[in-house]
């Protein structure tokens, strides 16, 4: 039985296989509409989420399966003090696969260690969010047609932004990648990510506080939100939340085929007038997220 807890649980071949299945689902949705008939996905969300939970649920429905679950910890026995391990053992009796989001780092791993059915990490605090990374990779594949020879700008909260760390990890396995790390001093990429991933794999990168400086070089601009829930101190959040706002003016020097991505939700870091620009891909990214989750559910349920 396989789980997906960390993006590194998947080899590059397996990721490419998932992307190929997702592309086939996009091309031939009818072929997949009954693949999970009689199967149940349990969405165990101990923390609020719009996209990830509904993306998993719609993915399962589009495969012909059913969904059970809860969308907040207070709606589950966790509110009575039940452990993650006991929750996982219980849900294993009802469902065929689990997608779990939890505010505590490592909770989905604990679930996987105690479950008899596959567990997908749908986000564990600021730690891992592998299906967002798969979503980002499918988006890059669809928009750019390749994973190598890309200059990728990552902008905003690079310190707490788990999607950024996972995307860097995943793309570092390809050649010709250059990262432009754009953030305020306080939200710079942690040194362990630089040391253990970028420097270890000889990946070229620059750090800057300016959003405009490297704009003409970028093939991809990945914007992120400064997340209130990652700060212990409200003052720090308020001081940093408006650090980078992407506007049409700032895009003036950008390539015509730039791909603008964002894991969403957006607060104000991308001006809404960019939404209609053909370079804006963040809502397409949401759609791709559903398809890659369909491919992942099929893989983990070992459905042919």
């Amino acid at each position: 039985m396989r789980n997906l807890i960390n993006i590194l649980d998947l080899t590059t071949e397996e990721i490419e296989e998932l992307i190929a299945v997702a592309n086939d689902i996009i091309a031939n949705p009818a072929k997949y509409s009954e693949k999970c008939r009689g199967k149940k996905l349990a969405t165990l969300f101990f923390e609020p989420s719009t996209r990830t939970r509904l993306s998993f649920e719609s993915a399962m429905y589009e495969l012909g399966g059913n969904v059970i679950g809860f969308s907040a910890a207070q709606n589950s026995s966790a509110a009575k003090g039940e452990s993650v391990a006991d929750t996982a053992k219980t849900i294993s009796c009802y469902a065929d696969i689990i997608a779990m989001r939890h505010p505590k780092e490592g909770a989905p791993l604990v679930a996987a260690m105690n479950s008899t059915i596959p567990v997908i990490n749908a986000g564990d605090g600021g730690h891992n969010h592998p299906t967002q990374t798969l979503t980002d990779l499918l988006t890059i594949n669809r928009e750019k047609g390749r994973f190598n020879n890309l200059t990728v700008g990552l902008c905003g909260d690079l310190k707490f932004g788990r999607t950024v760390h996972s995307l860097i990890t995943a793309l570092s396995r390809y050649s010709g990648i250059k990262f432009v790390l754009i953030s305020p001093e306080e939200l710079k990429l942690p040194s362990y990510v630089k040391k253990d991933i970028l420097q270890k794999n000889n990946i070229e990168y620059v750090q800057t506080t300016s959003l405009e400086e490297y704009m003409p070089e970028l093939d991809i601009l990945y914007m992120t939100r400064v997340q209130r829930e990652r700060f212990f101190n409200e003052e720090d959040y308020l001081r940093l939340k408006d650090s980078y706002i992407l506007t049409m003016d700032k895009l003036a020097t950008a390539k015509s085929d730039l791909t603008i991505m964002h894991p969403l939700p957006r607060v104000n870091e991308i001006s809404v007038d960019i939404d209609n620009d053909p370079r804006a891909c963040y809502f397409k990214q949401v759609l791709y997220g559903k398809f890659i989750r369909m491919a992942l559910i099929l893989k983990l349920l070992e459905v042919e």
Partner: protein
Amino acid sequence: MNIDSIKNGIVIDHITAGKSMKIYHLLGLDKLECSVALIRNVTSRKMGKKDIIKVDYDLEIDTDVLGFIDPDATINVIKDGIIVEKKSIELPEKLTNVVFCKNPRCICTTEQELPNIFTLTDREKRVYRCLYCETKAAE
């Protein structure tokens, strides 16, 4: 300085100078009722200075704990006054309830019945990370 030689017990030798007290506590030697000698800063040809611990009791040492603190240490098992076994120590792949995660966002700091498990992620640099949240073990 004379320390009585032991009849039946163990000698932990080649301890990096200064680490014996940590080993003494983490192995729970402070709880033993038998004679325990902790000798610090002994002159050593190989190491310059080293620490030695002698325990006058045939004790089963947790080599994972010892390996984590000082993988260069050795254990000599003494029976009837002679060394019957020499054990070398290796860096353990996994540590359970030896070091504890200090990350307040980690599931194991909330659910306290979970074992604190650290795995060896970089043998060369002797780095251990929490199995759940990947936080580096504090020295």
